[in-house]
């Protein structure tokens, strides 16, 4: 791709658009815009200039400038992404949405909120809680991530079994196209089939089709009570078998059904000095139910617990207060940290398979781990079939060996996923990290359709280039 460099003259023109104070060119300050949560040494790339506009108009002008001068533009939010989606791989201009951080409107009558993209997702929940509402579409990084990034990646999280992912809650948006038009899409409408649903095309497009400058999100009734069950099983199969049983036989849709394989729960328990009888467990499920009435929620938890014990669970622990709930969730939450003790060099994967395929997936992953002499714990959202299998470097291997192993092992992992009818990312996105592997799961016709859509929005390919797929 032949892009032009950002010249001092272009920096000046950017300053004229957003104000000189909001243009960053010092290496030191730009460093934080060169990476997200993916490993810096593998994926980071410096921008040439970072701008922090305040309005859609300013962004439209930047887009027109970038189009005329053929300079790549990369949108940047909180930098909590896990696929390199916000990394300026071709340099150019990074547009940070940090100054577009206002909650514009809380509409209680319609149970919707209008926010700018730089709002921290969890900040939506504070003012609406006392009105008995919450925003349900949030990912695990809710306290740091921005709404704009959630929309770009169609983020999901631990509560997606019941509440779904970001896209379910995006009712409308304002978009600045890569050619500099400002478009209003959707509205405060629960139903809307007026033409193509472009807003849902933008959701999950990883910032390659435009810059979202306003989002209308649907709110949900805030559940008042929750109960968690930490259930120990002999093997992954008996654990995973519970997912359809809970929903069909139990008639309950839990908030979360989190899965941890043997390696994950053992490493996390040891790291936390948690003395649950994890040695006997071949897998664990962490199941949460929530609702508005305490007795109803407790009853649901009991039904699920009984079903688990009937179906061969070793033990079912019940956590219905903060202390015990924290204890259960910290086993799940600390898996990634626990493996950092083994090695900080990891590849956090985000595969998704049909739920019933998880038991077949686990032994295949174990084979790959054994072949390359690395650890690959698998844990994540069993209720969605979305597992964060994580390749952990063997400390005995050199970095060169590790990079080589990672590349090969990831391909084999993806091949397994494809064979099982799954795909390579459930909620983190493709970005630049998984772009080389798109052809494993997406055929040439599908990729060509995506390219045509991209060309229709962005004829000069200036908007977040180098992500998801290549144009040739």
């Amino acid at each position, binding site marked *: 791709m032949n892009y032009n460099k950002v010249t001092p003259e272009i920096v000046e023109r950017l300053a004229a658009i957003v104000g000189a104070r909001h243009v960053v060119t010092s290496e030191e300050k730009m460093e934080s815009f060169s990476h997200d949560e993916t490993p810096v040494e593998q994926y980071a790339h410096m921008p040439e200039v970072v701008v922090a506009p305040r309005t859609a108009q300013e962004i439209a002008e930047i887009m027109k400038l970038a189009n005329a001068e053929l300079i790549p533009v990369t949108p940047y939010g909180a930098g909590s992404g896990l696929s390199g989606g916000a990394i300026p791989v071709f340099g150019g201009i990074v547009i940070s949405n940090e100054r577009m951080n206002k909650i514009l409107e809380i509409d209680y009558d319609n149970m919707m909120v209008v926010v700018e993209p730089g709002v921290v997702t969890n900040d939506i929940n504070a003012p609406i809680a006392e009105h008995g509402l919450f925003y349900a579409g949030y990912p695990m990084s809710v306290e740091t991530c921005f709404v704009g990034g959630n929309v770009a990646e169609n983020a999901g999280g631990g509560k997606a079994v019941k509440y779904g992912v970001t896209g379910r809650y995006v009712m409308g948006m304002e978009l600045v196209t890569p050619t500099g038009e400002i478009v209003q899409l959707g509205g405060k409408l629960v139903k809307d089939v007026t033409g193509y649903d472009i807003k849902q095309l933008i959701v999950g497009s990883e910032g390659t089709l435009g810059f979202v400058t306003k989002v209308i999100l649907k709110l949900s009734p805030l559940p008042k009570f929750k109960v968690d*069950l*930490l259930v120990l099983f002999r093997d992954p199969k008996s654990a995973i078998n519970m997912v359809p049983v809970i929903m069909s036989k139990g008639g309950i849709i839990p908030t979360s059904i989190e899965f941890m394989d043997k390696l994950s729960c053992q490493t996390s328990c040891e790291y936390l*000095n*948690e*003395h*649950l009888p994890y040695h006997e467990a071949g897998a664990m499920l962490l199941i949460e139910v929530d609702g508005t009435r305490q007795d109803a929620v407790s009853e649901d938890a*009991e039904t699920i*617990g*009984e079903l688990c*014990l009937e179906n061969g669970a070793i*033990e*079912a*622990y*019940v*956590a219905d*207060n*903060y*202390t*015990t709930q*924290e*204890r*259960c969730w910290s086993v799940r939450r600390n898996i990634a940290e626990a493996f950092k003790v083994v090695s900080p060099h990891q590849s956090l994967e985000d595969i998704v398979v049909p739920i019933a395929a998880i038991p077949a997936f686990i032994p295949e992953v174990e084979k790959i781990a054994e072949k390359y002499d690395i650890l690959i714990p698998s844990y994540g959202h069993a209720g969605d079939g979305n597992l964060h299998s994580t390749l952990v470097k063997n400390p005995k291997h050199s970095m060169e060996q590790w990079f080589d192993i990672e590349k090969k092992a990831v391909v084999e992992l993806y091949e397994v996923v494809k064979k099982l009818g799954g795909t390579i990312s459930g909620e983190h996105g493709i970005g630049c990290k998984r772009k080389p592997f798109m052809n494993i799961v997406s055929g040439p016709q599908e990729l060509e359709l995506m390219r045509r859509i991209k060309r229709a929005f962005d004829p000069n390919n200036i908007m977040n280039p180098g992500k998801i797929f290549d144009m040739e």
Partner: protein
Amino acid sequence: MNIVIPIKQVPETSNVKMDEKTGTMVREGVESIINPLDLYAIEAGIQLKDRFGGTVTVISMGPPNAEKAIREAIAMGCDGGVLVSGREFAGSDTWATAYALSESIKKIGAFDLILCGERATDGDTGQVGPGIASFLDVSLATYVSRIVETDEKEIVVERLIEDGYETLAMRLPALVTVVKEISYPRLPTLRGKQKARKTAVPVWAAAEIGIDAAKLGLNGSPTRVVKIEMPKVTRGGKIVPAPDEESAVRAVDGLVDFLKSKDFI
């Protein structure tokens, strides 16, 4: 071995907000939990029962909803519980509380061992356990980190002291207050929760225990809260700017001198 475990329901304080004007805790919406240190006593008690048989009974003095804490303890594996509750107990200090609990324990019946958490996270006094021991006139060991051995007549415990540990042998019945090192509390199970729901938890008022109401509550408490003072925050960081190498070296030397002056290095 019959074991009694006095427990306290306390506010869950990890997410607690303080009212900056009054200096008190905002209790609204704060969940109540078993005092975290009591969980270690409960675990130690259940383990002794598993080894020697007998029963583990929890007892709590508090408002009616402290029943929840008792049921949670039963769900963990205790056999039963008693709630000591009534308006006459409100405002009791550690002396009155220890008195009321000791009289209640007498009513429960013969016991070999009383296990307490070392202190409660709200009051933070650590006085009620030893108070009960003195009212009941039984042997006492505080800060116990390990039960070395025990039989029907004697218990040998290791207790945490400032410079290490000391080992004490005591005649039973005895009261032991425990620290975190003693055990890893188990989680309540589904079967335990079901059992706890079916277990009757009697509620005893002063009249049922047969104690003198004049020795209870605010009037029966020798402690008087005269004044509550907020400690002044005297801690504060100091940032030494060091824009170049020379000033950085000077700043490091200054830091070393400071640490030496405070005997840290």
